[in-house]
């Protein structure tokens, strides 16, 4: 895989959001046009579609030249959130469970306020320095849910059950389109989202996350 594709994030240009009815593209070009969201790298799309990165880069180049796609731009925090996970290859199910266990050992005890020493939250994430007291980190909550559900695939399914209870629009408002795209230090700013996540965790697991 071409390493530069890991950093190639595209979105549809404003002019191309509603393409001309007579616009003609190949199926792969339409597929790429429909899939770009500014948060998924070209390398990730190539992996998902089992395509060579070079072939996809050629198609992307053509769409960029035609003005249909444009490079995505990020704030520093958004870039860190996107790029951290784009570099991580997908492990098999059991190693993933071990990864989460290791992640839990590295962290401060669950319930430590976000931004406190030991949470690993300083220096990245999406919170402005003055807002850290109001936000909380998503990854420790996910780790907590996985641990409570016994880890592994069951743990991941428990996370899914929790997120099923959260209104879709709240997730999109916080630009959460996939849990794989959320960096380790992603912090939730939206109090409504935080509240619904905590409520859903209580409903699904029967325990409170503090």
């Amino acid at each position, binding site marked *: 895989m071409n390493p530069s594709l890991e950093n190639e994030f595209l979105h549809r240009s404003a002019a191309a959001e509603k393409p001309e009815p007579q616009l003609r593209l190949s199926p792969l070009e339409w597929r790429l046009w*429909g*899939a770009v*969201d500014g948060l998924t790298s070209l390398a990730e799309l190539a992996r*998902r579609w*089992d395509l060579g990165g070079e072939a996809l880069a050629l198609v992307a180049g053509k769409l960029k030249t035609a003005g249909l796609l444009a490079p995505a731009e990020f704030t520093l925090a958004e870039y860190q959130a996107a790029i951290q996970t784009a570099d991580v290859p*997908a*492990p*098999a*199910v059991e190693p*993933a469970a071990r990864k989460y266990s290791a992640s839990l050992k590295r962290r401060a005890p669950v319930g430590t306020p976000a931004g406190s020493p030991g949470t690993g939250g300083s220096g990245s994430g999406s919170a402005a320095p003055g807002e850290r007291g109001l936000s909380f980190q998503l990854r420790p909550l996910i780790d907590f849910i996985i641990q409570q*559900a*016994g880890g592994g*695939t*069951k*743990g*991941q*399914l*428990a*996370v*899914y*059950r929790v*997120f*099923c*209870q*959260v209104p*879709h629009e709240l*997730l*999109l408002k916080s630009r*959460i*389109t*996939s*849990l*794989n795209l959320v960096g380790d230090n992603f912090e939730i700013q939206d109090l409504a989202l935080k509240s619904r996540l905590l409520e859903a965790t209580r*409903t*699904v697991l029967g325990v409170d996350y503090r």
Partner: protein
Amino acid sequence: MTNHLGEAELKVFIDLSLGYFATVTGTAAQAHSPRIEFSRPEFSDFTGMVTLGGIADGCVYLTLGRRLLEDLLRRLGEPDLSTANCLDLAGEITNTIASNARGHFGHRLTISVPSPYQRAAAEQLPLPPTRFVLPLKWNNHPADLVIALRPDAPAPTA
């Protein structure tokens, strides 16, 4: 009111899907790290889908590329690798998984007759937006097993 399928019950669909490939082809499918997605769903060339009712509301589908299905048809001794046969096989795989799931859940969970779709048709389906996506790889061909549940479902009556 929430969906009444717990983690262990949802995992049944994963185990049955993995079991299909191992049992029917003799080659196990590998499961990779799952994702939880909230954006517009992506589909491969062919998709076999069942809808769920009763104690859960939503759907489960397997979306597979043409190369996987052609390879599978060859393994099954079928020389006709046409689109129609690929579509039939996508439905047949889902049918096998659904039949075994019905045996597991009984009347508590209603599982529809599977519907096979090509990509363009699948993209038109109104599906729950929050999805559990388990990437699979069988014989080096990728596929996704997807569970998509709606947050609200009727309470169990029994």
